[in-house]
């Protein structure tokens, strides 16, 4: 009896598992499912456990609802100023309407969708690149740089095409991933860059010498000014001294003759200080004393 019960329970569990596999399906978080009855979509299912009729009555197609990355090939287009520009863009796209997506792309093939996106991107990129000059892509002036605008134009074009075709796809974001030039152009750019470097070399040399000259000239001028100022200051100080000295003038005015005599004496002392040769006769004091010495001068 006990053995039979065990067999019944085991059997029942197996039947339940089998039934669950046949009649239920799970939709994972970030997924969306489209249920078709005899091939016709009858509704979508959000994450969780759901019931269904077994195949071939109903069929469940699951789609990733998350943002998916896609980037197109690095392809060449001509800008408005006739420059061959290589570019590649990346997009973040997601399935916004799973039923439409299933209807447009066979078995909801993501590869087919990306192929469609690639062709839309190619034409949108060609239009956008052709409308702009290279200076809109690269420019030191932020006001003239139209990088974001170009990205937006491509996005709008692709988004418009997707809506027109009811693809059930939405572009969340789009950005330029890479820009480049054809291989032959890169070597021409290298030649130009070499010339620019040469200009910079001579500019650095000239600039250094000119600047150094300027610095030295400024320094000389500054030094001359400093010394001139100092000399002016010295003159002022000496003037002050003379003004101060004038205060002693009344003392000398008491007897100008004596003052004059003393000045002359002082001048005499200073002028005959050293390395001087003095020629004098007996009229010069104190040699006038020699007059009284008898000489070989014949007396009259």
């Amino acid at each position, binding site marked *: 009896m006990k053995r039979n019960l065990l067999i019944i329970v085991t059997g029942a569990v197996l039947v339940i598992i089998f039934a669950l596999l046949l009649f239920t399906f799970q939709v994972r978080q970030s997924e969306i499912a489209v249920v078709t009855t005899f091939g016709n979509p009858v509704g979508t299912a959000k994450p969780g456990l759901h019931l269904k009729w077994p195949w071939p009555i109903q069929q469940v197609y699951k789609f990733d609802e998350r943002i998916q990355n896609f980037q197109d090939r690095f392809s060449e287009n001509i800008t408005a100023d006739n420059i061959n520009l290589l570019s590649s863009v*990346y997009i973040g796209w997601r399935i916004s309407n799973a039923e439409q997506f299933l209807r447009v792309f066979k078995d909801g093939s993501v590869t087919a969708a990306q192929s469609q996106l690639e062709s839309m991107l190619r034409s949108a990129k060609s239009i956008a690149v052709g409308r702009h000059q290279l200076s809109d892509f690269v420019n030191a002036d932020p006001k003239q740089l139209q990088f974001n605008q170009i990205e937006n134009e491509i996005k709008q074009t692709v988004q418009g095409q997707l809506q027109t075709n009811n693809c059930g796809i939405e572009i969340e974001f789009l950005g330029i991933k*890479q820009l480049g030039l054809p291989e032959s152009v890169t070597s021409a750019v290298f030649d130009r860059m070499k010339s620019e470097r040469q200009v910079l070399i001579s500019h650095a040399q000239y600039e250094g010498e000119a600047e150094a000259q300027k*610095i030295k000239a400024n*320094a000389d001028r500054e030094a001359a000014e400093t*010394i001139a100022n100092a000399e002016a200051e010295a003159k002022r100080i*000496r003037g002050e001294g003379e003004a101060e000295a004038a205060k002693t003038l009344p003392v000398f005015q008491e007897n100008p003759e004596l003052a004059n005599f003393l000045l002359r004496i002082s001048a005499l002392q200073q002028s005959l200080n050293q390395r001087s*040769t003095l020629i004098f006769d007996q009229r010069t004091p104190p040699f006038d004393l020699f007059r009284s010495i008898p000489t070989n001068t014949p007396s009259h």
Partner: protein
Amino acid sequence: MSDQHEHLHHTHERFTPAPVTPDDAGSEALAEAFHSSFTIVKFAMLLLVVTFLCSGFFTVGPSEKAIILRFGEPVGEGQKVLLSSGRHWSFPYPVDEVVKIPITEIQQIKSTIGWYAVTPEQELSGNIPQPGASLTPGVDGYMISADRNIIHVRATLYYQVDHPIHYVFGFASAPHTVQNALNNALLFTAAHFKVDDILYNNRAGFQDAVLQRVTELADQEQLGISIQHCDVESTPPRQLKYNFDQVTTARENRNKVLYEAHTQENQVTNNAAAQAFTIANLAISARSRYIQSLEADAKAFSALLPNYKINPDLFEQQQLVQVMGNVLTNVQDKFFLPERLDGKPRELRLLLNREPPQPKTGAQM
């Protein structure tokens, strides 16, 4: 009757079920085998059930969070969805599914455009292949700068996942999306920076601009990450390395010349300042000396005046003789010319610019 009874008895014995009264050893062994097999099966099933339930235990590491999906749907609401580090239990697959998300550890992603074709192994060994005359599209990455120069730039971005639910369930490949944002940021920033600014003059500004752009993109695209920092590396095309080096050398030389000029400037201005200081000081001391000397003269004058007033001529003679005495002691050559007898002046001839002979001994007359 008794025989019949005996016969019945025997018959009864013959049809008694085997386990009760086994009639041969074979059947008994078979029964026992069934019995033991059944026990093993029971045990195995129990073990399976236990294993099945135990397989639901899982560990969440210190740098990650986990989300349990029950039949595909997250268990819990809001922030409670996220399980912190520690031991947890969930129903095994297919009922529950555990999704682990790295959260506290810093994620790292490298840009894929902008650098020439080289493998990490080649870089590590220093065995970088020689560059060709041009760059091959799709093989050699590079950027076009604002002044239309070609430049190689690459970046490594460090970020943390702030909103794990968004990061994992919002994007099929969030790291790839972050990488595309980084590539775009490099391209966009290079497009409005000049090559010399990227390489030399404004490296920090360029790096900041890349960081700013990638942060903006991460916010716009709602990636649920916070960017820590971004390392940017840039180099001129290898084909033009010599030319760029030459410019660097020329700039170094210019700086050297300027440095020398500044040194000279400092010397000249410092010398001038010192000279000016000396001039001013000399003037000050000359002024003091002059005033002091005049004051001394005035004092001497006042002291001499009474004597002078007594007999001016005598005073003058005395002073003159005294001064002449001093003067004659100091004077190198002294010539005494007595008057001619005839009273005519003597003629004296002097050889100019003659170096006066040094006195040999004492004063000469």
